[in-house]
């Protein structure tokens, strides 16, 4: 029985110029303790997927499909019940940016906030927990750090604090949205290590465009392209012998592999072509690819691919 089961999830944005198909009938599930990566280039809808699990999409987003978390359907919950789950059951490590932490609020307060809210503990108790938490994140002089403001910390430190406050209530599911974005290589590796040890035993959904990061953290990987999952399976298998041309392309575009970027652009989410959404950029595309939209087919070794080449 999975912790998180997403079935037929679609997210559409209503904007003046029309409709944006951000996520298109995605099926996806995670077992307890499993760590899974959602990779794909920016704009492929992976972050939206994460946000739709948190139910934090803008008002003009229309969500259809099911998101079941521990057998309760999140899409059905009202805002108040959802607030009970956010931060407590499902935590999110937001994309790191200068503004991810409230610039005019002391770190301590920001970390303890959710503790006080969800655990109903006193400020004092919360503070001690928070200090412990922060020190676990490897921040020197934690109790001093509690009284300081975000701008007094480096990017890496801020990221650690973000991780800390998401782990505060020791949630079942952690959604990490681009935790390593905008960090230099050294800090990046440290952060990944930190995440690895902190998320041990928890269910981790990692949203990233960084295959390396995914490789280090996750046992399973799902590649998204243009709003749908095009390939998924155990990380090692997928990365060692990718099946979908897009995955191939991604790997080829890595610096280590000689940096051969995929030609062309991903189609506009305002209206996808009838056939395979990747065929425009696909070397091995046949005429059929342009007309027929490939289904996600199960392969051996718990792998799934959405490509007509494997018919």
């Amino acid at each position, binding site marked *: 029985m999975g912790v998180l089961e997403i079935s037929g999830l679609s997210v559409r944005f209503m904007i003046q110029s029309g409709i944006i198909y951000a996520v298109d009938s995605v099926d996806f599930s995670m077992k307890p303790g499993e760590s899974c990566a959602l990779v794909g280039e920016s704009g492929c809808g992976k972050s939206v997927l994460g946000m739709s699990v948190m139910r*934090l*999409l803008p008002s003009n987003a229309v969500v259809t499909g099911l998101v079941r978390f521990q057998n309760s359907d999140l899409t059905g919950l009202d805002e108040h019940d959802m607030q009970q789950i956010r931060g407590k059951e499902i935590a999110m490590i937001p994309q790191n940016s200068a503004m991810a932490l409230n610039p005019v609020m002391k770190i301590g307060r920001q970390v303890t906030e959710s503790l006080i809210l969800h655990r109903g503990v006193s400020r004092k108790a919360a503070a001690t927990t928070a200090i412990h938490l922060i020190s676990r994140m490897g921040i020197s002089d934690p109790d001093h750090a509690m009284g300081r403001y975000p701008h007094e910390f480096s990017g890496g430190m801020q990221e650690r604090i973000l991780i800390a406050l998401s782990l505060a209530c020791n949630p079942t599911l952690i959604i990490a949205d681009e935790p390593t974005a905008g960090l230099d290589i050294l800090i990046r590796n440290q952060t990944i290590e930190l995440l690895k040890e902190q998320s041990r035993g928890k269910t981790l959904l990692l949203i990233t465009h960084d295959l390396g990061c995914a490789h280090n953290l996750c046992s399973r990987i799902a590649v998204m392209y243009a709003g749908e999952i095009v390939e998924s399976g155990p990380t090692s298998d997928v990365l060692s012998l990718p099946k979908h041309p897009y995955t191939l392309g991604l790997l080829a575009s890595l610096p280590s592999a000689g940096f051969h970027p995929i030609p062309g652009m991903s189609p506009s989410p305002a209206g996808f072509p009838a056939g395979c959404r990747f065929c425009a950029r696909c070397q091995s595309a046949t005429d059929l690819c342009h007309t027929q939209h490939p289904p996600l087919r199960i392969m051996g070794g718990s792998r799934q691919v959405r490509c007509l080449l494997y018919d």
Partner: protein
Amino acid sequence: MNKGVVFWIGCFVFLFYGAVAVCAPILAPYDPYAITGPPLKHPDSEHPLGTNATGQDILSQLIYGTRVTLLVGFCAAAISCCIGTLLGIETGYYGRIFDEVVMRIIDIVMTIPLFPLLLVLTLFFTPGIFTTAVLMGVLGSTRGIRVIRSQVISIRHATFIEGARAIGEKDHQIMYRHILPNILPLVTVKFVSSMQHYLLLGVGLSFLGLGDPMVIDWGQMIEQAYSSGGFALGLWWWLLPPGLAVVGISLALALLGYSSEEIINPRLLVNRL
């Protein structure tokens, strides 16, 4: 959404006033200066808005008043925007000493109470349309300079600017070919909103009796009606028309300003979470 419609309403009303101002001679039933009836005549078929204490037709005065009132607002806004943009770009682009000097001067000017100063200076150079417009424009330009400057600073190091510099374009080419187009939307919005501001200020000045005696404007009409106890005695047609006219144009400009600000600053159109 709401924005577009509001914008067009604003535009329409503003253009309407503009048209009235331009076609005043055609529209006005009488010469606004000529005495065309008995003083303080009730509105009737020949004087749709009655006459004032001198026996001049109020409708005609209202129509001609549109010219001056709009003109003052427009000139003042134009002047202050030109100064603002020019100095704003120069200071923002060059920075350093020049910037420092200008900014300090502005700081000092801003410590002088502007409205009394405006009154004093208007009397200093005897009251007149253009005196008023220029004074308001110059004194009011300080804020504009700051806004534009900060905008310029924010894009000064943008890649396309650096690029232009890299291919060796002259400073002034960069300023007016590359930077100006980028801040133009901001300037236009500033222009609209400051036009509203100056228009009201101008009317206010002539309401305080600092109007140009050679012309008719709404402020003086209000002042006349008000200072001679007109309204108290139910001579409403004397005071209301100019007042409502002022409110109308100011409202139109306000709508125009806000909606166009939303257009250039999409941040104001957030989607609620």
